[in-house]
């Protein structure tokens, strides 16, 4: 029996490995295969190794790609700007209320993503209780609207992914030993300097994790653009949705998905290098 001990680590890896294989590796390969096929619903698809589809797709949908990345970037910056003070307050000043505050941050997740986004449709409605009231008071003119603009889409996505930023930031900030800050102030650092030179660098793993968790889904998001946006806010996710469900153009949709994934991977690689080799699991 002892001879089989070398097998044990592999057995532990097996569930995870199988899961990765079935739900990640195989779909990846299938999607790559589909993207290289040509055909139609009725006539069937044939693998023709049509690599030409990738340059076509880049050329055709470059606006939507860039727009999605731009939105994702803005969303991440906004989410960090809003989430960092939140996480900082909860971690350092939370005291007894830490758990309740964290619960309040996660509370919106008790409802479905779709319903949260639809509720934004009501909040931002042209003559709803927010804009309508402001218009009646006279702060806004009657033609002003937020829905069907990029502002609405970005706000919706930021709101939806804010908890994903707050939680990793909280975890990273909570780990910081307050005595380090004390030590910094003992050495004649001002509060701001202590923050910039002690707290901020130590919280970078949280910033890295949070920004990934908000940027990646934000780039691929389509629900906010569909419900809150218009033609001019079309993101790459909407394009894939229409190609797949309406046009039944599976190869093009698969190619876009693959490109998006590849692009994000490359971007994240450089981001990780830029942030230094921080240990994420400390």
């Amino acid at each position, binding site marked *: 029996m002892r001879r089989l001990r070398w097998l044990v680590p592999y057995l532990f890896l097996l569930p995870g490995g199988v899961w990765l294989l079935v739900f990640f590796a195989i779909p990846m390969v299938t999607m790559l*295969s589909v993207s290289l096929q040509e055909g139609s*619903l009725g006539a069937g698809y044939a693998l023709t190794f049509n690599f030409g589809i990738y340059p076509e797709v880049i050329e055709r949908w470059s606006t939507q790609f860039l727009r999605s990345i731009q939105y994702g970037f803005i969303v991440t910056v906004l989410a960090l700007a809003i989430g960092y003070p939140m996480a900082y307050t909860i971690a350092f000043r939370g005291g007894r209320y830490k758990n309740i505050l964290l619960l309040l941050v996660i509370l919106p997740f008790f409802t479905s993503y779709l319903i949260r986004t639809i509720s934004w449709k009501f909040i931002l409605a042209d003559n709803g209780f927010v804009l309508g009231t402001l218009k009646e008071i006279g702060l806004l003119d009657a033609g002003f609207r937020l829905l069907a603009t990029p502002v609405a889409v970005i706000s919706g996505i930021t709101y939806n992914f804010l908890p994903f930023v707050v939680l990793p930031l909280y975890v990273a900030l909570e780990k910081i030993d307050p005595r380090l800050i004390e030590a910094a102030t003992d050495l004649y650092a001002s509060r701001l300097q202590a923050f910039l030179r002690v707290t901020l660098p130590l919280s970078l793993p949280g910033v890295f994790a949070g920004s990934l968790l908000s940027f990646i889904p934000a780039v691929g998001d389509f629900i906010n653009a569909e419900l809150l946006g218009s033609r001019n806010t079309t993101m790459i996710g909407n394009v894939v949705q229409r190609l797949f469900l309406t*046009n039944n153009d599976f190869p093009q949709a698969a190619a876009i998905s693959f490109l998006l994934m590849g692009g994000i991977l490359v971007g994240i690689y450089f981001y990780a290098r830029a942030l230094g080799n921080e240990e994420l699991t400390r």
Partner: protein
Amino acid sequence: MSQREQETDLERAIARAFARGRYSRRAFLGRTGRGLLVAGSALSLPSILAACGIGPQASPTPGATNGNGNGGTGTLDWANWPFYIDQDEDTGESDTINQFEEETGISVNYREVIEDNESFFGTIQPSLAAGQSAGWDMITPTDYMCQRLIRLGYLQELDWSQLPNVEANIDEVYRGRPLDPNNQYLVPWQSGFTGIGYNIELTGREITSMDDLWNPEFEGRIGMFREMRDTFNFALLRNGVNPTEATFEDAGRAAESLLEQAPLVRNYYGNEYTDGLANGDVALTMAWSGDVYQLQLDNPNLRFVIPDEGGNLWVDNLCIPTGAANPEAAHQMMNFVYQPEIMAQISSYVQFISPVPAARDVLAESDDEEEQALAESELIFPSEATLDRVYGYPDLSDEAEEARWLELFQGVVQG
């Protein structure tokens, strides 16, 4: 470079294994395993890619996977459009469905899940292509989608022996239609017009022409449909082309007109345009005849008009997808609604064109004044003059042709 360095890892490992008897298998496998893994996957990748194909999506034998149902009991899963059946304002329930459930004992799961044909097709296509049930016993797509479903073999043939009421009461015009010459698959549900729905309070005047949909005066308050056929039809009509005779060049010009219009459009809607119209997001939008009249009950400022340039005439059909669990119940529902009294009840609410001419007599003889007026309604029983002003859709039964039009349209809707 010395000879040793030129040797690959593999060769070195082998050499070492023979030179030192105690070279463990693990170390050997570790070095070579990596190389073999890479080589193996590189060699087998093309064949793996080829195996991960999508086969032809058409079902080989239409109707081969019929469920045998429960012979008149059980549940009926019916997918339909919103605003498409009589509905009590207070309870939200449908008299027609309640009566059906009482009479037959079948419980009806009526879901208003169809917002536009194309996305609904997208939801049922994967299951039907795999030969499985799509989860519906009866669905209500529009003509062209029915044509596609028939072509792909996704619909079951109807058993007309179970449909005596349909046989007796159906309008003659629906027998032997080009898309279903022997009436094997489809039973018309309702027919209707696509025109312009508008809020007279927001537009400030009556709307009669399609040019107003292109009018910069209404910038940001205009709605169009995200379904290719309806919207392209409007653009073709505005350019003076008869849609049923349109060529791809005509479609190109229509797409240009639509691109001109795009900055003025608030959004491209499916059936949810009714929300936009009702709450004032849009001042005027493409609309379906019956929807607007149902919205009028709550907001008398809403109007519907068939534009001067022309409108669209479409037919929605009841049909049974393959793999349906309870096709008997579907047949019973079809038979039930084709009684003139029931169809009159439905028409008086939905205000779409009824496929049962006898329903008109039922309404005319009713005690209710409102219902008597409906018997004369142009929307439910249109006159020849009205029917002359509306057009059908281009014939895009050829997949490749349809794909080109869809691609063109995607450029309009998504840029």
